[in-house]
């Protein structure tokens, strides 16, 4: 069992233990007040990512992400320095920011910060205006061509609620994605973020969005918009 899964299950246990008894006693509101508050976060250890895109595929299958859209993706670069050529990778997803620019611009309050810190979209309320897509500095949102509403990574909130890890974390071959509760100081993500604070980076720190996706071993050149020779991929354009 990976460290991520172990501490994730432990933190879930803190919430659910005793819940049936409390509910039977009719004290659900009291329980809700007393329930520990989660602060879900992800640490991506870039050195462990092999760029296999298993996370990309798992996310598409888990969340029925339509063609030409991605909730997560591993950007891959070739870096040529003198006589050395290497590959750099960067798994991207919604950063579930603590100061999310996408939330205040939503004209109908469909985009919101959930109690656990996830940034979610109420697809029944969303009018599909695309303002949140414009406001996200990470290009992490898109208009779902099938639901015609704003779409994005939810940290697999439906799986987390059922005691499972996000699909991308579950499937990560190298164990590069670690998911957990920042509110629990014993969780792996908490330890990594505090104990390896010098190595921890977030994407586009200049935006002041306070992301909850942290990167270990991220080359500074890839933290913001990358100055590179472009090779943008448009899946539908390649269909014959």
């Amino acid at each position: 069992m990976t460290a991520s899964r172990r501490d994730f299950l432990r933190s879930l246990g803190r919430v659910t233990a005793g819940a049936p008894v409390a509910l039977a006693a009719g004290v659900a509101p009291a329980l809700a007040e007393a329930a520990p508050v989660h602060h879900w976060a992800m640490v991506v250890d870039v050195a462990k990512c092999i760029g296999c895109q298993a996370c990309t595929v798992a996310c598409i299958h888990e969340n029925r992400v339509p063609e030409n859209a991605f909730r997560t993706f591993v950007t891959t670069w070739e870096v040529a320095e003198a006589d050395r050529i290497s590959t750099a990778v960067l798994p991207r997803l919604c950063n579930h920011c603590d100061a999310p620019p996408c939330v205040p611009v939503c004209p109908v309050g469909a985009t919101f910060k959930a109690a656990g810190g996830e940034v979610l979209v109420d697809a029944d309320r969303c009018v599909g205006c695309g303002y949140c897509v414009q406001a996200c500095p990470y290009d992490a949102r898109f208009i779902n061509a099938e639901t015609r509403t704003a779409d994005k990574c939810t940290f697999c909130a439906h799986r987390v609620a059922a005691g499972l890890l996000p699909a991308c974390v579950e499937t990560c071959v190298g164990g590069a994605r670690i998911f957990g509760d920042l509110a629990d100081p014993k969780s792996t993500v908490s330890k990594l973020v505090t104990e390896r604070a010098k190595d921890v980076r977030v994407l586009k720190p200049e935006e002041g969005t306070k992301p909850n996706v942290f990167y270990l071993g991220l080359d500074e050149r890839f933290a913001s918009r990358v100055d590179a020779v472009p090779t943008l991929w448009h899946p539908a354009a390649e269909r014959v």
Partner: protein
Amino acid sequence: MSTEITELLYVTREPAWAPWAVQYFFLIGLSFGSFLLTLPGIAFGRETWRPLGRAALLGALACGLVAPVALLSDLNQPGRFLNFYLHPAGSSWMAWGAFFIPAYVGALILYALVALAPDFAAAAMSGGPLAPVRRLLSGPARPRLLAVLGLVTLTAAFTVALYTGVEVMVVRARPLWNTALLPWQFVATALAGSIGLALLLARFALGLGPEIDALGNRLLALAALVVVALGAAWFALAFLQPTGPEARALAQVGGSSRWFTSAAWLGGATVAALVVAVVRPVGTGWLTGLLALNAAWLFRWTIFVGGQDMPKTGAGLYAHPLALGPEGFLGIVGTAGLFLAVVVILTTLVPWSGSAEVARPSTSLVGA
């Protein structure tokens, strides 16, 4: 040590705002500018401004009626527009816009009805199949009420100008939009475009002679001068303040020949309109009008489509070919068609040129 980074794998993001958005910002801007143009002649009785003001009122109405349709079409869930009123979020400029637009369009319609009431009365006297409708809309000249309604509509128009500009300006994630000059550029290009529209409508919809060109071209030259000055200020800020928002924007569009072609065309059309308006102000209203309209539209195209062509994290530029369906080319043509249809309906129903002047005795109260 030189480093070359090549992006091997990344994805294109589809633009969230379709050309419908360009059409909306274009039309609402024209309506705003056209309404301002009506004020001296229609609301405050300046006789020399009256013919241009009437042409502008037609433009303000036609654009004001079509713009919300374009806006609604840009929503991916247009049927849920009621959510704007059921769940308004005060932190969003777009949410405020949902209230400002109907307030402006409603006030504009009321203002136009009061302004045209004497014309309807005069036209109803001459009979015809539309006489019952015209009789219903007829009324005496009410200069004081018209002035008050003009000021109310002006307030609503300013809220629309404010929200449309700031709504785009606050998007920090898009450097091209996130400059303090943008709302002013929207206003200036809208004013130039609306003067151009009034010149075209005066000539081709209301059948007015080229004598209207002199005033229109004088105003157009002023508006074009402001557009050019704002553009120059934008580039000056980009070069003088290397860490400023304009510099961020220029750095991002720097490699885009498409963007520079659009910008050069926009600048060329504006300067050409300015030169023609100054050098030959009479008889050229159709030409300066077309140039100004072209520049106003192209400015919004460059901002919205050009802005969304720029990846926020990836390298290079997204390739977004213009779709031919309703989400692209047909949307643009459809909006233009709807605008023409509204102009035809309004010019059929409303006695813009003939009866208005027949009714001079009743409207002379508003004379200067």
